[in-house]
């Protein structure tokens, strides 16, 4: 029918016109940065912390007059743990919004957008992903230590202090999970432990009984969970359901609300990165977002503040102009930043180091056994 055809044609032309006519971003007034975060999906609880931290930082910065008088505006994008979505978001931020900087999260999405960052000279800062492959990459800075630091600590502690000499692994089938498992094998082996078997799981899966049954049949002194987000609590509960009584272990990734609530995860042996739940920051976060703050909230608050400082420096140096390259140079020259958790020093490999705590999950909290100080 003619009418359907013309209706669709008109619709299509309108959309085209709108796209072509969208005005270019005006320079000079608000400073826009991106934030590519897991706002939905299996990691949504991290997203709440990350977005909250960044938002709080931006509000405080703007309340104090902004960055060299310019308002800071954060554009939030959701990658939902899918690197393709992160790539699309990054393209939009770089090509349309023309940001000089973006916050990023998770290992695979960050690795996927890094070539774009390097090519377009836009700085990306990661406060959450921990794959070892995130180190030493152009235009990518990590204000969180790569996972091998934590894995190294827990592997040694489990083998030596706890005398758990053999392990079975359950691993998330993505970059972060696999990378961490690889490091665990190396460090656990070096500390005298032996890995008996490994099974892979999907991050957004809900039934892991086949994998757990296979691992149970192999025995072992502990089940190491190289995974994160929502599926950790499911793994813990189903492992117990299948009659697996050996201790569970994992790095700080596993510390999400679902895990704290899970009965199966009680007693889990974990590493933890420093976070003070009684700090002024934590109180302010809880008041504003009606939920407990976590380590990642501080991370993204800090990353945003680091950007603000670097941007000010860059604008001072280049007569008010702000580019990604300028921000990068500023980070490199400042190097040591004051944060609410103490001094943060970016290493030569664009990463950070922190103290690491080890302990057990008891009643929704981590009972710390030992603290390994960071070597600066």
């Amino acid at each position, binding site marked *: 029918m003619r009418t359907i055809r013309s209706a669709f044609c008109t619709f299509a032309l309108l959309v085209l016109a709108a796209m072509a006519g969208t005005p270019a971003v005006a320079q000079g007034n608000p400073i826009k940065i991106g934030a590519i975060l897991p706002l939905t999906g299996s990691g949504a609880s991290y997203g709440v912390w990350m977005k909250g931290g960044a938002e709080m930082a931006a509000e405080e910065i703007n309340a104090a007059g902004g960055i060299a008088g310019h308002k800071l505006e954060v554009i939030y994008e*959701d990658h939902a743990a*899918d*690197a*393709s979505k992160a790539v699309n978001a990054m*393209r939009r931020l770089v090509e349309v919004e023309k940001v000089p900087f973006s916050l990023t999260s998770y290992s695979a999405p960050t690795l996927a957008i890094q070539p774009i960052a390097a090519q377009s000279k836009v700085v990306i800062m990661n406060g959450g992903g921990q794959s070892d492959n995130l180190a030493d990459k152009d235009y990518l800075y990590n204000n969180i230590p790569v996972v091998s630091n934590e894995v190294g600590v827990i592997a040694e502690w489990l083998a030596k202090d706890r005398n758990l000499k053999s392990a079975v692994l359950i691993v998330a*089938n*993505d970059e972060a999970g696999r990378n961490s498992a690889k490091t665990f094998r190396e460090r656990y082996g070096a500390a005298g432990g032996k890995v008996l078997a490994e099974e892979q799981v999907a991050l957004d899966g809900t039934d892991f009984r086949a994998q757990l049954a296979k691992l149970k049949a192999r025995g072992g002194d502990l089940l190491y969970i190289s995974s994160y987000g929502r599926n950790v609590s499911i793994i813990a509960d189903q492992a117990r359901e299948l009659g697996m009584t050996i201790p569970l272990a994992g790095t700080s990734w596993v510390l999400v609300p679902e895990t704290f609530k899970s009965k199966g995860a009680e007693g889990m042996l974990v590493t933890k990165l420093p976070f003070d739940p009684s700090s002024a920051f934590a109180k302010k976060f809880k008041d504003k977002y009606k939920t407990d703050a976590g380590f990642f909230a501080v991370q993204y608050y800090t990353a945003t503040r680091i950007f603000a400082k670097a941007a000010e420096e860059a604008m001072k140096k280049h007569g008010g102009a702000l580019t990604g390259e300028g921000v990068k140079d500023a980070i490199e020259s400042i190097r040591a930043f004051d944060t609410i958790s103490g001094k943060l020093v970016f290493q030569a490999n664009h990463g950070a180091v922190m103290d690491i705590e080890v302990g057990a999950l008891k009643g929704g909290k981590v009972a710390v056994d030992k603290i390994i100080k960071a070597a600066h």
Partner: protein
Amino acid sequence: MTAYLAHFLVMVAIYSILALSLNLLIGFSGIFSLAHAAIYGIGAYASALAALKLGVGFWGGMAIAAAVGALASALVAIPSLRVAGDYYVVASFGLQVVMLAVFMNWTDLTNGHAGLPGIPRPNLLGWSIDQPFEYVFLAGFFALLTWAICRRLTDSAFGRVLQAIRDDEIAAQAMGKNVVLVKIVVACISSALGATAGSLYAHYITYINPSSFALHESIFIATLVILGGSERLTGPVIGAFVLLAIPEALKFLAIPDAVAAPMRQIIYGALLVLFMLVRPEGILGRARARPR
């Protein structure tokens, strides 16, 4: 923003190729395949790996993609086309699921969930096709080429055999046409063309991972064909244009990102149902005589 418009046009061109190639199966042969996203993915991975691991340029990569796509399709088509249409639907679904598992789990080859970043942009005799608008011309060229190939095919004697099979398979067989062979050939051509779309995609976005080639993508490509009208060649292209414009229109309504994706799917699903009830031949199709 003109960069935005250029991006839109490149995606329309790529999806046009996918829709035109799937239309050879659905519209012209009456074979409904749910595996086109897997073919798209096979093309993307083949081309990306050729570039990243073997240093093969874009053009060589595209040729490899087409060959691998055709081969994969032949493997599935041969057993299932011997039987019947509904069996092919289920078998194509199977191919889709298996290929996704391969993309995700054969990590030594595909890098699994983490995907393949840093795929190089195409190079035409030393001139690197970098700018969005340059890519519009490249993608547009291949879309036109695909259209021309499909046109040649459907207007030829082979095309008439296809339509005969679509309209009445038993009669076509009675007339001595080797129905199974013809179907396998058209499946291979369709996949070769679909795989080239994958190649274009990989070298454009410069990053691929398994999530772009899942079942919902197959359903989306089928929707493009069906809505646009499967009997004429311009139908799938119009379908691509309109359906890609819908999410852009949604953006102006400031719908939160988390809801936008399922919302798009609701619209596609609703359109499919409505069109089948009201106008099964799609936007551009000729109205069929409706028997009472």
